[in-house]
C-alpha cells in the first residue's frame, strides 16, 4: 500500500463517516429546515471525500490511471455544484408549500420581506408560513 492509496482510503473513510452523520441529522433534527441544515452539508462533503478519495486511491493501485482522478473530479464538482442547488430548491419548496418553521425558531425575515413586497405591489396573495401545512402530519 502506497501513500496515494492511504490518502485515498482515509478520504473515503472520512466521507462515509459524513454520510453517516448526514443521515443521523436527518433523523435527529426536529423539522425539515433543520434536517436540511445538517443533512445536505454532510452528504456533500461525504461525497467529496468518497469520490475524490477513490480517484486518489485508484492512482495508488496497479490498475489505476489518471482518468480515474479526472473522472472522479468531474463527478465531485458536479455534486458540489448541484447539491446546494437541490438543497436550496428543497428548502424553498418547503417554505413555499407552507411548512411552518420549527416552534423554537427566533425570526422569519423572509416573511416580512415578502409581505412588504406584496404590500408594495398591492397584490393580496402572499403565501405565509402561518397557513396550515398542506402535507403536514399525514400518515
Amino acid at each position: 500500500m502506497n501513500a496515494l492509496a492511504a490518502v485515498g482510503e482515509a478520504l473515503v473513510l472520512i466521507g462515509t463517516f459524513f454520510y453517516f452523520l448526514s443521515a443521523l441529522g436527518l433523523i435527529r433534527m426536529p423539522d425539515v429546515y433543520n434536517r436540511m441544515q445538517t443533512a445536505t452539508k454532510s452528504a456533500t462533503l461525504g461525497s467529496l471525500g468518497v469520490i475524490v478519495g477513490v480517484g486518489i486511491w485508484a492512482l495508488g493501485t496497479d490498475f489505476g490511471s489518471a482518468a480515474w482522478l479526472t473522472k472522479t473530479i468531474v463527478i465531485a464538482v458536479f455534486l458540489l455544484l448541484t447539491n446546494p442547488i437541490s438543497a436550496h430548491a428543497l428548502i424553498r419548496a418547503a417554505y413555499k408549500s407552507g411548512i411552518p418553521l420549527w416552534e423554537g425558531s427566533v425570526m422569519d425575515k423572509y416573511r416580512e420581506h415578502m409581505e412588504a413586497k406584496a404590500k408594495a405591489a398591492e397584490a393580496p396573495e402572499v403565501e405565509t408560513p402561518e397557513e396550515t401545512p398542506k402535507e403536514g402530519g399525514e400518515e
Partner: protein
Amino acid sequence: MGEASKISRYLYTVIVLFLIWLLLTASLDPQELGFGLILSLIVAAFTYEIFTTSGLANLHPKRVAYAIAYVPYFLWAMIMANLDVAYRVLHPKRPIRPGIVHCKTVLNSDVGKLALANSITLTPGTITLDVDDDNYFIHWIWVPDEALTEKEEEHVKAASANITAPFEKFLKVIFG
C-alpha cells in the same frame, strides 16, 4: 459589465466543454479528441447563449487565479461547517436556535450570486432559502445574539457580516 460578443461567448463555451471532455475521457487518443471537439462545437452552438454572458473575459488570469485560491478557502469553510454539523447532531441536547435572516450582497453577476448562495448553503449552519435581487434570505441554525435585533438595518449588517461577506472578497473578483 455588458454582454460579450457572440463569438467570444461561443468560443468560451467550446473551450469549457472541451476541457470537460478531456477530463471525462482522460485520453489523448486522436479519435476521442477529434470527436470531443466536434461534439463541443455542436453542443456549444445550441447552448452558448444561456451558458455565458461574459464569454472569454471569464478566462482573465486574475479571475482564474482567484478562483484557484478560492478552492482551499472554501473547502476549509466547508469542513468547518461539517464539524459544526457534527457537533450539533451528536450533541445530546441538540443545540439549535434557528431562524430566517436577511443579508445583502455586493455581487452583481448571476454566476457570482449562485456561487455565493452555494457557498452559504455548504457552510456553517446556513442554507440559502431565496435570493431576491441583492437580498439573501438564509435559514440559520444558530442565529447569534447580534442578529436578533429589531432594527432591520442592523440585522442585515450583522447577518451579512457573518454570512455573505467572507465569501464576497473572492467572488467579487472571480465573477464581478
